[in-house]
């Protein structure tokens, strides 16, 4: 039996890591679906109806899996982290309740209209439902990130003790909820979601272009659909990929200012130092370098003063406080250090990919460069991967704190929880969520292989839904 603290942390990590895939899909797809719906209503071009219907199918499946895995997280604060929930409920419960009422309700009710109601409502109401669904997904992120960012940069609270129990009471809601981390997190996350979906779309489109040998003059019906998908995804990629890097750079500086211990773990700086290099490519030469990276011992390409530059916003001489300086134990440095590098590396690869594809578009070879298509196919899930490792930096990097500087994670776990119970549910989730991921992958792959609904079927209208089940949205 595992210790209930360890088991609860592993379970929360597992259930969050799996869950976040689906909100990334739905938040990222939201602006695309709004655009497709708008163009479908405003133009006669059937390709937009195809785009809307095809991507709505993927959205609907993602939404359902996101709902069932999301309720798990909301309940886990109570089941596994009862001490945290009791202590911080005043600050933490409100945003969760507001998320449910303001965001989730909007999304879930209008999703019914959006998925099933195209033939039943006016164009205007249909457009409203597309916007409401999209807005709902983004408002969800607002409230979840308000809650999370408060844990990273807590403000607006007072500590009290009620019969020996710590109570974090809310004294200044504006300071608490408009905390310094929130805008950084929100922008970084939403852009990451759109970027991830753009990569996914580009990968799916490139797969069909490559496998079916689609070229610019191909007049098969699906050919036009995939070319269009690839181009739209590419435009979005060209905007979001560079933006993510520029924004991430400034975000790093903010982390250094507000959570210096996390920043030191990201850079594996143990001793306080100035002129700290940024190891963009750290090459581990021994197992120990992987499990226990230390900035000074790493072999790699270090930009002299790079980490100092990142921390200070341009001063390569700036001092970085080492992990040894802090009173609390360091977070698991290896996980934070390597996750950060994987995220950054992925981010730069996305920029490269976007420019490569843009160059091919410019030279009129977008559909002829199979190496590019393969690169897109191989990168289709890398955006989601980058989101995962990015969140690992954020959440593992703030350890041992669950609320930075206020409450330790180990003190937040439910006091009555036994190792048996916690281990049982952890194993249960490992099994159930493996199945869930396999199922989701299987269903999405089927939808992708099937391709867009044909224009004939489209023209025939949704009333005669074909039994082949390709009409997830009528």
């Amino acid at each position, binding site marked *: 039996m595992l210790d209930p603290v360890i088991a609860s942390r592993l379970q929360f990590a597992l259930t969050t890591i799996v869950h976040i895939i689906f909100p990334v899909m739905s938040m990222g797809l939201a602006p695309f679906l709004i655009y497709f719906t708008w163009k479908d209503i405003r133009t006669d071009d059937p390709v937009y109806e195809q785009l809307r219907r095809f991507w709505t199918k993927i959205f*609907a*499946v993602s*939404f*359902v*899996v996101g*709902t*069932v895995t*999301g*309720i798990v997280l*909301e*309940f886990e*604060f*109570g*089941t596994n*982290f009862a001490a945290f*929930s*009791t202590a911080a*409920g*005043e600050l*933490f*419960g*409100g945003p*969760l*309740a*507001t998320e*449910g*009422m*303001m965001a*989730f*309700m*909007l999304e*879930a*009710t*209008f*999703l*019914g*209209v959006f998925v*099933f*109601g195209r033939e*039943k*409502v006016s164009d205007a109401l249909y457009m409203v439902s597309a916007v*409401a669904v999209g807005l709902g997904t983004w408002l969800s992120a607002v409230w979840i990130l308000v809650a999370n960012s408060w844990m990273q940069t807590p403000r607006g609270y007072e500590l009290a003790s009620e019969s020996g129990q710590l109570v974090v*009471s*809310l*004294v*200044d809601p504006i*300071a608490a909820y408009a905390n310094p981390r929130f805008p950084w997190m929100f922008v970084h996350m939403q852009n990451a979601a759109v970027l991830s979906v753009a990569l996914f779309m580009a990968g799916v489109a490139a797969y069909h272009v490559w496998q079916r040998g689609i070229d610019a003059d191909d007049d098969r019906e699906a050919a036009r659909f995939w070319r269009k998908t690839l181009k739209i995804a590419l435009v979005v990629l060209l905007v979001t990929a560079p933006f993510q890097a520029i924004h991430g750079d400034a975000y790093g500086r903010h982390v250094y200012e507000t959570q210096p211990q996390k920043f030191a773990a990201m850079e594996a700086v143990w001793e306080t130092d100035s002129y700290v290099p940024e190891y963009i490519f750290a090459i581990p030469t021994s197992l120990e370098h992987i499990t226990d990276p230390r900035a000074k011992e790493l072999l790699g390409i270090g930009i002299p003063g790079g980490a100092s530059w990142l921390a200070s916003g341009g001063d390569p001489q700036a001092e970085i406080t080492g992990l040894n300086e802090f009173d609390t134990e360091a977070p698991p440095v290896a996980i934070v250090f390597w996750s950060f590098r994987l995220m950054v590396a992925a981010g730069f690869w996305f920029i490269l990919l976007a420019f490569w594809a843009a160059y091919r578009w410019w030279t009129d070879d977008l559909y002829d460069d199979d190496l590019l298509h393969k690169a897109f196919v191989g990168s289709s899930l890398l955006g989601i991967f980058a989101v995962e490792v990015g969140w690992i930096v954020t959440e593992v990097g703030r350890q041992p704190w669950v609320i930075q500087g206020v409450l330790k994670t180990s003190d937040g776990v439910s006091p*009555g*929880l036994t190792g048996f*119970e916690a281990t049982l549910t952890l194993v*249960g989730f490992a099994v*159930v969520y493996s199945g869930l991921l396999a*199922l989701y992958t299987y*269903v999405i792959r*089927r939808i992708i292989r099937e391709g867009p609904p044909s224009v004939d079927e489209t023209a025939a209208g949704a009333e*005669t839904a074909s*039994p082949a*089940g390709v*009409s*997830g949205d009528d």
Partner: protein
Amino acid sequence: MTDYGAFATGPLFGLPLQELWFGLVFFILGMFLFLDGFDFGVGAIFATRDDDEERETLLAAIGPFWDGNEVWLVVFGGALFAAFPAVYANLFSRHYLLMFAILGALILRGLAPEMYEQRHDEAWQTWWGRAFVVGSVSTPFLLGVFAAHWLLGVESLLSLPGVVVGLAVVALTVVAGVGFLAMKTRGSLQRDVADYGPRAMAAYLALVVVTLGYLVAVRPDLGVLAPIPLALVVVSLAAAAGYLLALRDGRYTLAFATVPVLVFAFVALVATLMFPLADPATGLTVADAIVSVLPLNIMSVASALLLPLVFAYFGILYSTFSGPIETGESYS
């Protein structure tokens, strides 16, 4: 620091906010039990149909709705967390395995209708059909166990009163599902479904009577024979009579209209018997467990603004898909 003045020192307009929030939390639970309740009932009735077209019709009937209906459970968790964090934390951690059993059942119920439509071969649909039934029946059963254990302060995973109340909630969801489907279907399917109504109602009433008898005998401290609980029992009986008469006369919309009365009477009964405690197992009262004034005022304002909007969304959703399922209209 911003000065929040009276907003931070006294309840908004001097309202009895802690009692209102206790009521609101149960109201939200009631909304879930009413709305997702008929989805669960449809899932149970699904087990009795083996004709493909009829099964598709059942799924089509709840297709646009169930997702929104389920969100009431999310809001219930959020509202309990926001208003009574200690109750939320104690209750959920004390019923650790039960909560995860509920979550597992909800995962099954949520995935099943979506998966059912993904492939149209027999083996696939047989299995997902079963998953849909199992998820739809076990979720209300486990929620009933949860409600009984909350009220009675039971700490074990299962107990006899928990099982009886669980079965009562399952019967109640079938009552709701019958009412809903009788409105949404036509022909032989409608007649078959309506036939289940009296039996489900008889089971529900019998199980409630058993539970109340048990409470009178074993838990006199709860005060089942006080005026308000008795009034709720009378209301339930009247609604049940209305339901049965309306079904007999084929007035299905009226039959369905009695369902929320039954559900809210049931939930109100649980809340009334529990009050003034909010977590009987630990002896926490509503007054002990309520958050402090400032967050309570904020959440009150937020709910007062947002809940009417939520009702408007549901109004749009339900009016868009009002009326019976047309022949050949499929879930997808």
